[in-house]
């Protein structure tokens, strides 16, 4: 079943990218593209890239070297778009909260620099490969990119978790999807680059299936409205409200302000 050109293989290559195009259409119709322009570009580009690679793979006239050249081109552009999406996610996470925005941006940028250096340092230690340089190089490029991207998305989650920065639903959903895909892709490409797994077949299925799940998660977070369980925190007004318990809020606030004034200006 986990063979190239099986039904599952065709499905997993085509379906998530077709779903990406549908999602891009919904994003456009709902006006979400104004908030996430790079994410929309990413969805469109990846769908077109993957359909092109799929057609090139099926076409008997296309040589493997041509296919790998197309893969290189797509991976580089896709990588740049992913960094733009990461910047977009960080902007949406921080721009409402000036108290932590600068520190947050500096921390994530610093983490990015460290990750790029680390990924570049690890790249030369790839296991020797008897495939053409173009193929082995593509494995190393993928590992390097996914290491940086997965590290950056985890650093954004750590930043939000440490400072308890509130996520909005869409930004969180996009980040979770990317987080899952990039971590899984990193693990698979590390196994391939390290020579532990090569041409077994299941690694492509794992990557494609994870991306499929990721696209479904994006559908859920971007298109399904959250359940509103708003409890009535505003107290009733009028005669049914009943008498206030303890000091009235105005009195309480005055006491607070008086005491705080005393503390700030002793």
């Amino acid at each position, binding site marked *: 079943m986990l063979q190239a050109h099986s039904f599952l293989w065709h499905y997993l290559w085509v379906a998530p990218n077709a779903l990406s195009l549908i999602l891009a259409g919904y994003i456009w119709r709902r006006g979400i593209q104004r908030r996430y322009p790079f994410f929309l570009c990413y969805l469109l580009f990846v769908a077109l890239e993957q359909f092109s690679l799929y057609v090139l793979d099926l076409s008997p006239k296309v040589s493997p070297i041509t296919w790998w050249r197309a893969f290189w081109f797509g991976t580089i552009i896709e990588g740049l778009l992913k960094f733009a999406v990461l910047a977009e996610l960080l902007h949406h996470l921080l721009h409402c909260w000036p108290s932590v925005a600068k520190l947050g941006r500096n921390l994530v940028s610093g983490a990015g620099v460290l990750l790029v250096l680390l990924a570049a340092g690890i790249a030369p230690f790839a296991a020797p490969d008897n495939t053409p340089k173009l193929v082995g190089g593509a494995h190393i490029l993928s590992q390097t990119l996914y290491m940086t991207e997965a590290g950056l998305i985890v650093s954004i989650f750590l930043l939000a978790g440490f400072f*308890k920065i*509130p996520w909005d639903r869409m930004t969180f959903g996009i980040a979770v999807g990317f987080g899952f895909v990039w971590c899984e892709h990193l693990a698979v490409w590390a196994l391939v680059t390290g020579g532990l797994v090569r041409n077994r077949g299941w690694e492509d299925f794992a990557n494609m299936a994870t991306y499929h799940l990721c696209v479904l998660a994006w559908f859920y977070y971007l298109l399904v409205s959250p359940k509103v369980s708003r409890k009535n925190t505003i107290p009733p007004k009028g005669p049914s409200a009943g008498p206030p318990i303890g000091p009235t809020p105005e009195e309480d606030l005055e006491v607070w302000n008086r005491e705080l004034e005393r503390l700030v200006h002793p």
Partner: protein
Amino acid sequence: MTLAIILVISAALALVFILGVTVSRSLQISEGTGLAARIQPIDVEAFRNLIDPAEDEYLRRRLPASEFRFVRRQRLLAMADYVKTAGKNAAVLVRMGQSALAAGDVHTAEAAHRLVDNALLLRRNSALALLRIYLALAWPNSGLAAAPILRGYEQLNGSAMLLGRLQNPVAPVRISATL
């Protein structure tokens, strides 16, 4: 090969972390109530006393050097406990403010936004202050300024009170024990 295994383990841990964040977020959304009860009131007067440089100077003059270092470390540890509690309270207030951000009432939403921003500022300052306190534990004779934390906490008191008042006038939020 070793590097590959390290990368795979790191990726797996990152996946588990992201999964944990996703699950805890969905639990928080369904949680809703009972957040105010998690706030631990802080005795601001006692904290002011701890960070007062005049107190430190007095102890430095009255105590032998070794004894002063011991007392100073004890005071720093107590200070760290206060700052940790302030940071935890700030985290609770962020969640309270977050749940009020979507309120239909403009004033409540504005107050919630202000509360969350102030709470995040306090959380940031708490983290930096904790770092300074732990550094000062290694060098007890060095000066330490924790006053920004106190000011941030006091500012937060005002924001929490305002939001609490807008949401529920009969039970405003209290985050300090002095009042």
